[in-house]
Structure formats: C-alpha cells, structure tokens
C-alpha cells in the first residue's frame, strides 16, 4: 500500500524561522528521508512554495474561475496531487482545465509551484 503523507503547518510560523532554523529542520528531515530511501520506501518528496505563490482554478458550470491564492473553502479535503512540468502558470492552468473537464462538477485545483522536488523510488 502506498501512503501519501501531506504536511500541514502554520505558514506564518514556518515563515518566521531564521535561515539557520530552516536549514536545521531540513537537515533533520533529510536523515529520515535517507533512511527511507535506503529501504526503498520513499517516493516523490516535495516542498511547496508559500500559498502566496498559489493560484486556484475553481470548477464551475461553464468557464472555470481563476482565483489568486489557495481556495479557502474548508469543506473540501486534500484528495491527491499531480506533479507536472510546465514552462509557465498559464501552461499549468491549461492542464488543470483539462483535468476539470475530465472530472467535472465541484471541487478545485490549487496550482502551487514546487520549491524542492525529489522523485524517489519505491520497491512497489
């Protein structure tokens, strides 16, 4: 079974870390990741840029609505994610539009640039 571990934290607090603190946290996380990598149990790892860099494409009846920032509606849960390689925000929005056409109805796609990405590899 593959599990996704989604990280939630207060952006204000993480943003107030000094560079040294941030580096120290990343170093400690790297130790855990290294162990999992050796065991062949670590898939993709990503750290996202702040939510201020996010754009949301909200599904709607006809033309989807594009909103700056994450969608604040908490009634929906984080159900999965894609990693796509795009040259610009517009390209990423085009892909999100295709996805919304393939899966119409409610919901939205948050487009967040990735700051750190390690593809990783698992045995299964």
């Amino acid at each position, binding site marked *: 079974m593959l599990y996704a571990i989604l990280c939630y934290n207060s952006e204000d607090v993480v943003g*107030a870390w000094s560079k040294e603190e941030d580096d120290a946290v990343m170093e400690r996380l790297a130790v855990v990741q290294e162990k999992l990598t050796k065991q062949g149990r670590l898939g993709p790892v990503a750290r996202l840029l702040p939510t201020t860099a996010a*754009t949301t494409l909200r599904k709607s009846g006809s033309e989807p609505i594009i909103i700056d920032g994450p969608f604040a509606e908490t009634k929906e849960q984080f159900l999965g994610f894609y990693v796509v390689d795009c040259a610009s925000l517009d390209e990423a929005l085009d892909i999100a539009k295709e996805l919304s056409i393939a899966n119409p109805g409610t919901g939205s796609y948050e487009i967040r*640039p990735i*700051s750190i990405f390690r593809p990783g590899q698992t045995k299964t």
Partner: protein
Amino acid sequence: MTDANWIDAALTAARPQAVGALLRYFRNLDVAEEAFQEACVKALKNWTKNGPPRDPTAWLIFVGRNSAIDVVRRQAKQQPLPPEEVLSDLEDNETAIAEKIDGADYRDDILRLLFICCHPDLPATQQIPLALRIVSGLSVKQIAKAFLVSESAMEQRITRAKSRIGTGGIPFETPDPIERAERLAAVAAMVYLIFNEGYSAAASEQAVRSPLSDEAIRLIRLLLRMYPTEPEIMGLAALLLLQSSRSAARFDAEGEVVLLENQDRKLWNREMINEGLALIDKAMRHRQPGPYQIQSAIAALHARAATAEDTDWSEIDLLYGALERMTPSPVITLNRAVAVAKVRGPAAALTLIEPLEERLSGYFHYFGVKGGLLMKIGRNGEAREAFNRAIALANTAAEAAHIRMHLDSLSKE
C-alpha cells in the same frame, strides 16, 4: 525544533496582527506595545506548560488586552479613557476573536500599524526604525546596530517619531477602498526603502545591515497574504526576492562589488528566484502593469539568463521604456541606456544620456555610466574626466575603488 524556538517564531509571526488589534482597542501605541509584551511574557510561561494554543494570535490579543486594561485603568487617573463607544467591540471571548482573525478588521489593523510608520511628517530616517520597532519587533539595540548609530541615539529617534505621530495622527476610521489603496501604496514604498537600507550596504556592513532586507521580505510576504490579488504587491515581492537571490554573489572575497554581468550565477538562490518568477507569472495574469511589476520583470530577465551573454537586453530596453512612460525619471533613462548600449551600441546610449547631465550632475552613477560609454568608443580624455567626477561623487569607498579600476585601465593604454 525545540519549544522555545517554536514559541519565538510564533510570537514574531503574531506580532503585527496582535499589536495592530491592540492599537485599535487602546488607541495608544505605547499601551498596545506594552500589552503585547506582557502577553508574550505570559505566553512563554503558559505555552511551555500547557502547549501552544489553537490560535496563538487570538490568544495574545485576548491576554494582552486583559492585562493592559489594568494599566489603562491606573493611567486613567491621569488622563481620561476614550469614551466607551469609540473603543472597539472585541468580545470577552477567545472564539469570537479567533473567528474575526481572517476578517477585514484585522487586515486593516496591520495596514494601519504599517501606515502610521509612513506618516508624511516623518522623514525616512525615522519611518524605517519605527516600522522595524513597532511592526517587526526588533529591539532598539538591533535597529541601532543596523543603522550604525548608538543605542541611545536610536532610542531618541524612535521616541521622537512616536511623539510626532501622537494619537491625533493615527487614522482609526475604517478606510474606504481608495484610502486603503493609497495606504497600501505608501506602505509598499516603505517596505522597499527598508529593503534597500539592507541591500545597498557595503560588504563590510552586510552582516549588520542585511537583516533589514530579510525583514522587508517578511513584511512584503505579510502584505501579500493580506492582499493576495494585488498585482503590484506581487510585483514588489517578486522584485525583493529576485534582488535578494543574488546576495551571495554580489561581493568578492575582498569585499569589492561584483557587477551583475560578472557574478557567479551558481551562487544565486534558486528557491528565491523560483518564488519571484512564480509571483510575476501570477501578477501578469491581471493585465494591470505597474512600476514594481515592470522592475521585477527586468530582474526576472536577468534571473532567467543562464549566462550574462544570454541576457535579453532588447526586452530590458522595452521594459525600461515602459517604466519611463509610467514614472518619468532621469535615473530610469540612465538605466535604460545600459540596455541600449548592449542592443544598439555605446554611441546610441551616449546620445540618450547626454541631455540628462544637468539633472544628474550630482549623481555618481551618471558619470560612471557616461565614462564607461566614452571609454568604449575611444574618447578616453572625456572618459577620464567623467570618471574623475564619479569618484568625487562616490557614496562609498567600494564605488570609488570600482571607478579607479577603470581609470587605471585607461592610463595603461
């Protein structure tokens, strides 16, 4: 991360919102600051023991408010409290406060806190220390160090700024959309000033002054979270991130300035560049260009170029042209001349800047650029003259040393 570090970061992060809300409640800057200080002391005790609250900012506002009410009552013997109806209607209930945290009230609180620091009566030398003290919560000692003055001189400067504002100068009424936009623009300009205080410092001062740039980035991120759909705020955030991304490459081992074209681009901070580029992408979608967006787009063209030779100078020329039309200034024309020299040659650039001489007669960079262009077309005598004027106008030893290098290469020929 240890508890103490977490609490420290949480208090720093909560400060602008909490002090802003306390200021709205008590209508007195000193009382608001003391109330927040008191709440922090209580947080250190309480949070270590009971764990962090669900909403640290709401907790600090609630506790700070309660502890300051006593102080205000004591002071009330000397001066009357504002009438009850002008005091804000914060409920005696943490949940109610927490619910309002995301509301427009709190956005206006933070904006007001920043805005009183850009009071038109205050010179920039007072605005910036005041913002760093009140909004960022840096200690007077830290600020004094960054401005290379004594602690007591800085203390005096901040006190003077506070008294100049007075209570009368603080706009407490809820701003209308136009007023809010004006405040936001004034605050953005101040954040850029704070950034430049740190960024323009010489290598020898970087250790004490670069925290100012970091603080400016923290403030612009705060504004961006409050106003996530303002393209100019995205543009300024991108600009600060892109400029800051080059920090590690800007000075050589001897502390000499390394010009953009000679910088080792491997030293540029990729993460900051990516964030800056992402913000520009977002801003562009709004189709409302502004000066910060254009400046950040220029910085982005440098950031995107793998080598100095790959720089898209004709696009930079166009962007400076757009910036000139939007905010005409001889300094912008001078910057554009650098791009023009790359695209159409030094003679064309010289023609562009010569009419500026009268207005820029006291400006170091004008004569530096002019000397460089004259040198390229072999008018060495005139180049030497321009370089000498540049040295006389240099603001730092590093600037003068850089020009002297050109003079040396001229005398070798």
